[in-house]
């Protein structure tokens, strides 16, 4: 089993979720994060004091999936989250040892 972790632009959340649902993924966890990368931030000025804001609002999505559908998930996210403009974000995939559903104690792929 794997976790697919994606950093995306906030306004893309609904599209991404729909794309994932379309490929049969029905659970995910979202975190508000700030990203730093190639995409430039902006400058805010308060009475002459300038602040360069280089961290931009992003959303992090974490999805635990059986290993065999990782590629499907990655593709779904990529196509839904892409705007083609800098700052679209990243996807990282890593393995997990096991998963548990707290309510039932089911484990691994049954837990998802």
């Amino acid at each position, binding site marked *: 089993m794997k976790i697919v972790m994606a950093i995306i632009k906030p306004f893309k959340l609904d599209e991404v979720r729909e794309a994932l649902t379309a490929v049969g993924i029905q659970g995910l966890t979202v975190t508000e994060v700030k990203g730093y990368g190639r995409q430039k931030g902006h400058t*805010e*000025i*308060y*009475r*002459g*004091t300038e*602040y360069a*804001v280089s961290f931009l609002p992003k959303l992090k999505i974490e999805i635990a999936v059986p290993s065999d559908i990782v590629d499907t998930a990655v593709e779904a996210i990529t196509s839904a989250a892409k705007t083609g403009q800098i700052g679209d974000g990243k996807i990282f995939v890593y393995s997990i040892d096991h998963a548990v559903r707290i309510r039932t104690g089911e484990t691994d792929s049954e837990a998802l």
Partner: protein
Amino acid sequence: MSSFKLTHSLSRMAAAMTAALAPAVAFAQETAPAATEAAAAAPVPDKADTAFMYLATILVLFMLVPGLGLFYGGLVRAKNMLSVLMQCTVIGAVMMIVWVVYGYSFAFGGSTSAYFGGFGKLFLSGVTLDSTSATFTDGVVIYEYAFIAFQMTFAAITPALIIGAFAERIKFSAAVLFTVLWATFVYFPIAHMVWDANGLIFTMGALDFAGGTVVHINAGVAGLIGAIMVGKRTGFGKDMMAPHSMTLTLVGAAMLWFGWFGFNAGSNLEASGGAVLATINTFLATAGAIVAWCLAENFTRGKASMLGAASGMIAGLVVVTPAAGSVGPIGAIVLGLIASPVCYFFVSTVKNKFGFDDTADVFGVHGVGGIIGAVGTGIFTAPSLGGTGAADFSIASQTYTQIVAVLITIVWCGIVSAILYKIVDMVVGLRVSVEAEREGLDLSSHGEAAYHS
């Protein structure tokens, strides 16, 4: 009797002011010869003036909290929000008590000194429900309690204005101690000098309708000295210190505008034409200053900001404070149009040059705006410029007087404030520790956090 004449002469204004500041206390009258009493046919307060002063007085309280608290509080980081609200609240409360204990006496206690009101009215001694204070109109009086309450709100808000300058690093005890000392040795004397018939600046003929000198220049200078002596915030110029809630800052500014009508119109002491003039001027100078600040920002950086509009709002209110009762509506707009670009230039350029850390720009807005207003009052009161000055009004001589008044205030306030900061530093210390500053004053000084979910 209550109409404010276009030819209202300044000397008459001065004479009336004299009366205003020597309240005709009932107690005093009782000791006077019966003949005098009969002759006097002691005027009684008009109910309309009573209602008017009641409104004006509570409006000034509204300026302090929530107004000033939110205006300043919105500008600091969330972790210091409560410290600002707390300082405004507690300083206001302490000053109200100080005012009835000795402040009113020190400012308006009836002494003939040019600097000091004396000890005659400690604990409001001799003031009764029937005591009255004169106004600017012969034969028109208000309840002395009304005058005391109105002036009490000024004494409450002025020291609180200062705390914006060293917000986010001052010790709570130091803030309270300093402001009480400052009120005692700076505010009361200068209020006496400017508003009492025997006062140094009053007798010079300086015009200060609602406290441009006493309140704004005074607080601005004390703020400047404080910002320098308390020192910069840890992380200043490096860390993000953007206002935690521009929304609250604008709400505070708008509340200040609302309340300022109490400040300015109320300074007329009666619901006559002078109050109406002060009202319309308070609208228009502010409108002019809002527009001007936005234009200044638009020219220099391509965008007008909400903080700019809010700052312009305050700059306009400050600049019209000494002028509200004597300039015309168009003069008020012009004053507003002038004040904003100057204040903007100061806070965005001059301040950065000097590098001091005046958190809420108390000096940049109240100090600088106050000076422009004090000088501008000397100009726009001229009847040729739409003001209500007498026919023989001389711009040159009045402006000279205004400048002298400003300089006296700056020097007195500057020197005494510096000494008081030093003393407070020695007694309780001015600053919190760096750790406490980093954690935020709300937690470290007050054991609370402003926001939870």
